[in-house]
């Protein structure tokens, strides 16, 4: 699997900032993810959409931890959707899923508008 450059686009949907990501979440994604967090502006809920993400390594996990930590500092709820079964397992193993609810897809993630800043399953 050749490396694929990370990219992220942010749009507002039902008051939720949806971060559609593509490529690999590794050390190259650091500035892209930080920029996406900033671009999410004042939205109370930020959804990380993993539909087009093919590879996440431990550095990528660390970047998501930082994203969650920033969300906690700014009282924002972070959600995730469209993770492959393998990365869902990794999010559960690392307990990231205790701090961000994982939805099947963006539609179900944005349908739920109630804000829960403490996170989903935790």
């Amino acid at each position: 699997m050749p490396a694929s450059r990370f990219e992220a686009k942010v749009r507002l949907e039902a008051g939720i900032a949806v971060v559609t990501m593509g490529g690999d979440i590794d050390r190259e994604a650091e500035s892209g993810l930080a920029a996406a967090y900033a671009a999410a502006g004042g939205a109370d809920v930020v959804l990380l959409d993993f539909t087009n993400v093919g590879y996440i390594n431990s550095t990528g996990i660390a970047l998501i931890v930082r994203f969650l930590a920033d969300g906690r500092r700014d009282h924002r709820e972070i959600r995730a959707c469209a993770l492959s079964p393998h990365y869902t397992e990794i999010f559960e193993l690392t307990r990231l899923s205790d701090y961000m609810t994982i939805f099947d897809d963006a539609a179900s993630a944005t349908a739920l508008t109630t804000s829960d800043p403490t996170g989903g399953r935790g």
Partner: protein
Amino acid sequence: MALLHSLRRSLRLDPSTLEARVAADDDRPAKQLLPTGPQVEIAASDPLLAYLQSSPGPVDLTSLELDSPAVRDLREAGVALVVPLISQGELIGTLNLGPRLSEQEYSTDDRRLLASLATQAAPAVRVAELVLERAGEIQARERLEQEMRVATLIQQQFLPHELPKLPDWQVAAYYGPARAVGGDFYDFIELPDGRIGIVVGDVTDKGVPAALIMARTQSVLRGEAPRFLSPGEVLRRANEILLPEMPARMFVTCLYLVLEPATGRVVYANAGHLPPYVRTADGVIELRATGMPLGLLPGMAYEEKEAVIDPRQSVLLYSDGVVEAHGPAGDMFGFPRLRALMAQERPGTELLNHLLEELHEFVGRGWDQEDDITLVALQRTGGGEHVLLGAGAEPVSAEAAERRVLLTLSLPGEPGNERIAMSQVAATVAPLDLPTARLERLKTAVSEAAMNAIEYGSQNDPAIPVEIEVWVTEDDLFVSVADRGLSGPIPDAEQPDLEAKLAGEQKPRGWGLFLIKHMVDAMEVVTDGAAQKVILTLHLRGVDDAGQPV
């Protein structure tokens, strides 16, 4: 005052390189930053340059008496005053001014102001130049690195993912790409009647062109080898097919050997490659056969010879990268050293490991591997009527016999190469048909182990390789990732404290070992001096798709 012209950067250059550098400068974005007037070429030998270099301030061109083509050209372009920009004693450009719009002469105050401006502007211009030069260098390096990655990928797609399993033979192979990726290759080709074709070759040149020619040569050989019994005929046909396709100044050296495993008989032909060594009871001999490299000349014939490899004898096929490797003092590893190592009786895998250890010891730390290194070793471990056990020789253990090596891979210790490790291991284990979830976990574990080895074991130094080996036994799959341990021992894999990381009390990193440990059925760290090896195990039997015992 009108700023007419900024002198070209070619000023600082040696006249012999002037033309090329001026042409290169034409593409630089730097020129767009500066308002430009009429362009005036100033030859590096023009006396004006020496005059400006030594001039303490603005130079009035109207009164300057100097036999200089540049002075004439500048006057024609309407330049009246030239202010040299000097940074650290070096003339880096000029401010060229036309006559004052008031048609008066430049006053003493004007000149003082301009001299002061030039003093302040020169270092700034120099810094801007350096920044642009650096940006250009970075861009060029990125292009090279991208090309290297492509070349590596092409090359590794074509290297065998599996070693042949031959009764009574132990086969081992090693391929270590150089930083600039040469064109080495090796191959095992299944032939009728249980025979096996063994190829080792080397394409002149490096990078993507060499990788493409290597891929093409291998395709041709794979196509022709099963059709002809004779290795000489296979090379003759390969030469005819490759010749019209071969780019100028490129050719391929290639040794092709056909082995009959049951009898030990080998028939071989050689297209200009280094002859293989055979260790016999009487010492090390070479298997010589004459022939021109492939792709040089039409109508070539290739001498064909035969030999018999007796039980406990070994054959070593190799590329020039090993004998031409340089030590810190500039001396070469050389044939005598390789031959002496070959003379020691060792089974195939052990022979290769020993050779590589000796090579690494010879070249020392921080070795910048100049060329690819390929080694293929064959040892006849049994069969035949006369099993010769030399003094001190031990029979191959049952464990070693059932251990089947699928891949040996050496990667430069460069960030990003963990992806190559991951994809190579995935391709290697594809025939095992692991359940998707198990394969995905293995890929993550290999990628993380390789990433740690690169970052800590090699400290991101491409000259310090990371070695990957994949092998199977009847019940298990093993992947080892070995590094030189430059950053000390691998710590225990502990559960990271997510709460502390989320609260900002700990850094968010530190997930690698934890992930590796949980992605495989077992993780073991083996140390040997500073060198260390992470061995990952996946059970092939007695577990369900999720890896749970059944």
